[in-house]
């Protein structure tokens, strides 16, 4: 085992420079009243989301945003053992193994809420599943109708000449959504066969752009682009309704929908950061993150499904979102081991 990095380094510095910092390495100090929750930038729970936790424990929660998920994990891996906060929200399937390998987490799986066995099985006994969501091909209902085309229903349809030049996807090498789509195609076609599938996609005129926002806001027909099929989230249709501008009439159907068979599942996790001097408080915060109170805020603020199976979904989800019954999925370990190889091969195919 490695010695406590903070303490050993502090001791070193103290000996050289000041000599009085040893006290800080003891047990909990006065700062116990605040916990820092490290999260990706787009973690935007409603205001007051942690009030209930503060009321119960007297601890206030400060959110430290840390870039996108990849940046957050890269930073956490480099600062492993001397973390920038106490708890991390949002490491996902594609980065979990890297975080675990870098010993970012102090293992803790919350038992405070009912979470389905299949979600728990993916957590490697180190972190707690907090939410999940899918990446799927979305389509613009009106635009396809205008083209007199039925929505595609399968991976095979995407390489059908009928749907030539209609699909846009973010890059697998630059975007987590793009990577999820690539992984979905591999899960469906099989490792060793997906290359041919992607060659067929390229031949059928798939457009690859850098990030999700360009795919969705620049190339997708709904926002003035030319592509009625876009790789996005399964929850994009309810987001279209909630953020419709002007607000859409309550009974209107969502303007977009998803191709269910293309959906690839991503699970997000929360964990206690190794090196925090407030392990017990950090664990109680993880418990709160899966509590029904907190989980019920997730769908309409960050557009994910709660991991707590007792939480009821809001109407925007039950009405407009597709509850994907059999999503494609990969073990986090497989993704970490093969990511660079798959992305390099993919880049050669789409170049």
């Amino acid at each position, binding site marked *: 085992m490695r010695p406590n990095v903070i303490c050993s380094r502090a001791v070193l510095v103290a000996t050289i420079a000041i000599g009085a910092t040893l006290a800080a390495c003891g047990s909990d100090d006065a700062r116990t009243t605040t916990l820092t929750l490290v999260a990706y930038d787009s973690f935007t729970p409603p205001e007051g989301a942690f009030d209930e936790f503060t009321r119960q424990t007297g601890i206030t929660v400060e959110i430290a945003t840390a870039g996108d998920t990849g940046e957050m994990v890269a930073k956490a891996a480099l600062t492993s053992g001397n973390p920038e906060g106490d708890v991390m929200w949002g490491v996902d399937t594609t980065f979990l193994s890297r975080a675990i390998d870098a010993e970012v987490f102090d293992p803790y799986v919350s038992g405070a809420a009912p979470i389905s066995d299949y979600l728990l099985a993916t957590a490697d006994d180190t972190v707690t599943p907090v939410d999940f969501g899918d990446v799927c091909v979305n389509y613009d209902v009106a635009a396809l109708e205008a083209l007199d085309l039925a929505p595609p229903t399968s991976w095979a349809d995407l390489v059908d000449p009928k749907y030539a030049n209609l699909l846009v996807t973010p890059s697998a090498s*630059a975007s987590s959504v793009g990577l999820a789509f690539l992984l979905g195609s591999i899960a469906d076609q099989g490792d060793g066969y997906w290359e041919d599938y992607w060659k067929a996609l390229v031949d059928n005129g798939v457009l690859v752009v850098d990030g999700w*926002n360009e795919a969705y806001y620049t190339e997708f027909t709904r926002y003035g682009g030319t592509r009625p099929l876009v790789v996005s989230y399964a929850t994009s249709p309810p987001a*279209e309704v909630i953020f419709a501008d002007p607000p859409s009439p309550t009974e209107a159907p969502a303007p977009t929908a998803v191709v269910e068979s293309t959906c690839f599942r991503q699970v997000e996790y929360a964990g206690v950061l190794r090196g925090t001097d407030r392990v017990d408080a950090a664990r109680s915060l993880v418990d709160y993150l899966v509590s029904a109170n907190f989980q019920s805020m997730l769908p309409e603020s960050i557009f994910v499904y709660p991991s707590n199976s007792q939480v009821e979904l809001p109407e925007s989800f039950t009405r407009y979102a597709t509850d994907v019954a059999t999503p494609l999925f990969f073990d986090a370990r497989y993704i970490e081991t093969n990511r660079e190889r798959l992305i390099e091969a993919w880049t050669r195919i789409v170049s």
Partner: protein
Amino acid sequence: MDAHRVVNVLVRRRDGAGLLRGVPAIVLVVTATVIPFVGLVAKVLGAGDVFAVWSRPGVSGTAWFSVWMGAVSTVATLAIGLPAAWIVARHRFRGRDLIRVVLGAPFVLPTVVVGAAFLALVPGGRGLVAIVAAHTFFNISVVLRTTTPVFSAIHDDLVDAARTLGAGRIRTLREIVWPLTRSAVTAAAGLVFVLSATSYGIVRILGNATRSTIDVEIYRRAIEFGDPSGAAALALTQAVAMLVVVTWSASRRGVPFTTLASGSRRRVPRAGVLYVWILAVAVVLPIGALVTRSFRGADGWTVSGWRAVFGGDHSRLEGVDLLGALGNSIRFAAIAAIVAVPVAILVARPRRNSRLVTFIASTPVAVSSVIVGLGILITYDVEPFDIRSAWWLIPAVHASVALPYALRSIAPLVASLPTGLGEAAATLGASPWRAWWSVELPLLRPALATATATSLAVSLGEFGATSLLTRRDTRTLPLLVESLLGRSGGVGSTAGSAAATMLLVLTGFVIVVLDRGLRT
């Protein structure tokens, strides 16, 4: 003591002071850039890694692409930018101030926004041509900022004398203008090359996901592939190569010349005015497309993006604090400029500035901001000096990043200041400080205005390191733009474009105020 020895003593005294005056610059750059960079490289890089990464598929291709694309972008930018800089610097005409603002604006836009603006203008316009065009669009302002102080300092009489003596246009250009402006032009060229070759956001957005520079590869290895040692190896290579270019281009010396009055008041030929106007329109078009996008929802025109960023619509966009981000951006930029400009003035002394100091002050340009951002996290993390989350780290890094640009705005003009002036003042009994304050500084005013505007602009637009150091309450405008553009639902697109427009307005305002306030 004879006169010769007096001069010698004076010069020698200033020589020693050259290094001393560089101390603030060295402290700033070493703490905010060099230590984090070296700290990270030393932590993750093994001996064999420096070479191992080059055998990975695609890596050497990115290096080659960086070099030739950088060269092409530099040639295009100079060819288009230098004539514009000459016209704007040397002639009075209607709309000149407006054009100066317009041509200076793109530099501060986060490259993410520049890329998005290009796409808004030319849908589907991706590929090599788009990349070079965007770099030209982005870097014309660098050429302008670096060369206008010197261009405007060339006295009409010099050019007229050459013409009167029978030199043609070309010959005047080659034998009079070029020797006087060479140092500024090569400095600009070096900077543009480095900025293009290390380009990140533009290449990602306009590169069809298939073109990639070393900087893009560094980010991918550090963040997406979990290969920090490969990233460090590339970052080290890039830093060394770019430092060579920057140092070489900044060390070209021009011929010293006297500037007692600045510039020319004469009218410019019509074709010249037409040229800068066309250029200004070309710059405004993508920006206009961006502004349009802030009003353009999925179902027609709307102002809800603007309402959302100004907090009038709390229920729809959680965690968006435009005024907070605006305040942070202004605060950080002000601090960065207040630190960087005086430090740059101290370094940029006539002929006496130490090479070592100039070299160190140039390093931030050459160093990958991702590596600096990550480096700060692992070097300044030792209790009780754990300052990773200190807000002032961000303006400190900005000041360090801005320093090379500030220096380049000042140095060419300083280098061309007449030596005799300061020495005359000294002979007349003025202390070196007094001579500097009352004689040299007033002559440097145009350069100071440019340096301040540039420092503010660099800070306002910095993205790479800031995004790794920021906390929710220290988020800046470019980060807000990026985060808004990544949201689902139409309001993310309009609100993101609205925030980008705010950033643009802020920068335009800064440039106008400084130009008016310091130049005249």
